[in-house]
């Protein structure tokens, strides 16, 4: 959404850099899944997924360079409500069986 900013300097180098990083971390997450890390397997897998999703959102979806603050607000609000959904539900299920 910030066409004028991009036209000055070619962003292709950055795009390829992000693409390469995403591929490397896909490989890492694939390999890490076959190593015994105990409960950290899930943490590593989800951590890498979140890192990749953040890269895609910020650089491929142009949120980082967005001139419109409302876009950032919508992104943050969407993630906030998703966290509310997952956080409240899981805290309920995680504490339900206490006796």
């Amino acid at each position, binding site marked *: 959404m910030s066409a004028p900013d991009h036209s000055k300097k070619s962003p292709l180098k950055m795009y*390829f850099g992000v693409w390469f990083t995403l591929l490397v971390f896909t490989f890492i997450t694939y390999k890490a*899944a076959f190593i015994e890390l105990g409960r950290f397997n899930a943490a590593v*897998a989800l951590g890498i997924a979140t890192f990749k999703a953040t890269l895609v959102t910020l650089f491929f979806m142009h949120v980082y360079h967005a001139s419109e603050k409302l876009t950032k607000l919508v992104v943050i609000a969407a*993630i906030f409500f998703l966290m509310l959904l997952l956080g409240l539900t899981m805290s309920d299920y995680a504490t339900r069986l206490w006796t």
Partner: protein
Amino acid sequence: MLDNASATIAVHDHHGEAHAAHNPALLHHFAEPEQQRNAASLGMWVFLATELMFFGGLFCAYLIYRRWYFGDFGAASKSIDAFLGGTNTAVLICSSLTVVIAVWAAQTARKGLLVAMLGITMLLGLVFLGIKAVEYKNKFEEHHVPGASFSFENVPIPGHPGQFANPRHAQMFFSLYFVMTGLHALHMIVGLGIFAWLFIMAVKGRFTPEWHTPVEIGGLYWHFVDIVWIYLFPLLYLIDRHP
């Protein structure tokens, strides 16, 4: 009265000129192209926010059942081909790169590059769906599709020698697997439709540096579908892989 009327006409004329000279795609209810672009992009983001909640409900269901049927989910997940899933992740990441290059090509008036990138994106989307079809075919042959012919007997639970997965619990995993990947595949098919239209528009030369909003917001949609897959891959394919 007369003065007023002629003044109005003069303003309209000036407006018309500005249109002809600058941007025929600028709609009348927007002050400037930048505002129009931002409005379209914001609308797409709000739609993606609803999509996030849509998939979020399924992710939530997944997390609840993964907690309840921890070992059974591990055993069921192990039966899926993680290499195919990983390949599909790489395919989608590559398609995200071609999409972002397509947007850049539209911004910088590189028509040939735009058409090529849109075409490659569609090809990669088809490769993704093809690999997905192979995966589904394997699941059908193994009787891992929930329903009357579902069978998941004597499959050991990872990390618990001598224990076997409960087929009913494994069926829950496969239900979530098919609904989540199926819904994602449906989004890919919709994305292919959008990109086919973008491709035709690009071939006709409809996109200019001033107006290429469809490429931009179509790209946003494609990236979002990529992000959903980035989470589906570890959650469905990579849990309890280690020996």
